[in-house]
């Protein structure tokens, strides 16, 4: 409770700025008589969203499913892969250049291909989310597993510990901060990937809904869906950040906020 109050206190400036923006938007649209299909007032967006909430929620769940499943698949595949690449020279020499090259390919451009290969269902969306989240996690994972202080390794060798212990007690915790950086980038991309995949071909999901409202010029609902999508993306991102805070409370990225909370 106290933490929440502290958070509210810290974020009050951002809150007022945001409220101010909405008020100016609302006032301007009404005074200048801007057509609703161009720019609806925020109050109308809120009312429309409230009225059609059940329908939006159904589609949001579809998209949310794609995001979570694709992201988890990326995590499960990319972290072990990063480990293998970091610790095996031959694998690194053969696989890493391929990964670097594939990373340059605009992955969203592959979405139509996935439709040809896997149809209109869940699979192509899952794969596109996977593909977009995958690269940042692998690349940061490799960097994390590779960054090691040689003195720490010498110290470990002088204890006579075996490789497994060295991995669990040194290499893994050491790699975690960079892995989490990759996870957060991947999480942020996951929502984008799901919507793009739905744009290409689908009969459900927020991307589909967005296209439908757009073609009917129901602009208030377009805004509403964009808001729901943003919230969805934010939820995934903060879920990862919460896990990060629990997993590596000692890291610099978490220290700053902890100290900030202490002083305010």
């Amino acid at each position, binding site marked *: 409770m106290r933490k929440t109050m502290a958070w509210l206190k810290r974020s009050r400036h951002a809150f007022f700025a945001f409220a101010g923006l909405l008020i100016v938007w609302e006032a301007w649209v009404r005074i200048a008589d801007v057509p609703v299909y161009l720019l609806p007032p925020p109050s109308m967006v809120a009312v429309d969203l409230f009225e059609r909430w059940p329908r939006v929620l159904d589609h949001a769940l579809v998209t949310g499913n794609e995001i979570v499943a694709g992201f988890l698949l990326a995590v499960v595949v990319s972290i072990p892969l990063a480990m293998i690449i970091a610790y095996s020279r031959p694998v690194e020499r053969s696989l890493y250049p391929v990964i670097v090259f594939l990373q340059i390919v605009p992955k969203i451009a592959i979405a139509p291909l996935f439709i040809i290969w896997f149809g209109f269902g869940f699979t192509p969306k899952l794969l596109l989310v996977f593909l977009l989240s995958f690269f940042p996690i692998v690349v940061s994972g490799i960097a994390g597993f590779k960054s090691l202080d040689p003195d720490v390794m010498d*110290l470990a060798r002088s204890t006579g*510990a075996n490789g497994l212990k060295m991995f669990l007690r040194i290499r893994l915790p050491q790699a975690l901060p960079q892995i989490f950086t990759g996870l957060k980038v991947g999480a942020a991309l996951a929502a984008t990937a799901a919507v793009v995949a739905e744009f290409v071909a689908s009969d459900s999901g927020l991307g589909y809904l967005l296209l439908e409202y757009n073609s009917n010029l129901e602009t208030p609902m377009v805004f509403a869906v964009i808001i729901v999508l943003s919230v969805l993306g934010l939820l995934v991102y903060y879920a990862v950040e919460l896990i990060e805070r629990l997993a590596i409370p000692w890291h610099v990225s978490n220290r700053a906020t902890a100290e900030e909370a202490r002083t305010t």
Partner: protein
Amino acid sequence: MAELRLAASRDDAAPEVSGAASAGPVSIAVRNVSKVFARDGQETVALDGVDLDIREGEFLAVVGPSGCGKSTLMRLIGGLDMPTRGEVTIGGAAITAPVTDLGIVFQKPVLLEWRTVLENVMFQIDMRGEKRRDHLDSARQLLAAVGLADFENRYPHELSGGMQQRASIARALIHEPPLLLMDEPFGALDALTREQMRLDLEELWLSTRKTVIFITHSIDEAVLLADRVVVMTPRPGRVDRILDIPLERPRGLEGRKTPEFLAAVDEITELFLANGTLHASRPVLNLLNKKEP
């Protein structure tokens, strides 16, 4: 900075000690050891024909310029690296793998940032697969001995450089190794902290009497701490001379004032002048001086 007071007081330690006389039989032998590093087709001779006997329970300092191979020598003794020629033996057996019966202190504290001070000390125990509860008490005692009693639950980033290095010394001692390797352990500390650490290390050594190999490039530090000082030449590193330091212990703050200290520092300085590590006056400086009429 917390003050360090060890179990063994000065009075306890004073009578039984007198310089190098306390050193026991040879326990580590470095025999005609050379180490060559090859990189990009270029060979660098770090050590060239080094012979050295280290006696049990002695405090041996190795002093020399940067790049003279002193750290390499320490790594060879710890089995972290293998010599190109020659061999290093411990208790008569040649070293072929990392030696586990020792503690190492590096120039950097090398603490794990995700472990508290106490857990960093216990890291040694965890890695060795020993029972934690057998060592928790002694870990706390060691932390108290190095002045960190109130900091066991702090993380390394919350400590000053000197305190971090104290924690790393505690970690090097928790498993009670007979041998302590210290590679410029005070090199990254400010001068005052360094002086305090030097005093504390002497007391710690007097109370434990471990074999210590102490790498440094401070002549003062070497003379004030060691029973014997190994003077190295610039690259390729060779043993220039080994000096006995007959100073009474504990040397503490008074050690600096004794004629023996001054004589030893003088002798080492002369050696560094002779082997080219130090130059009394550089030609360039002479030129600068002559510019002004």
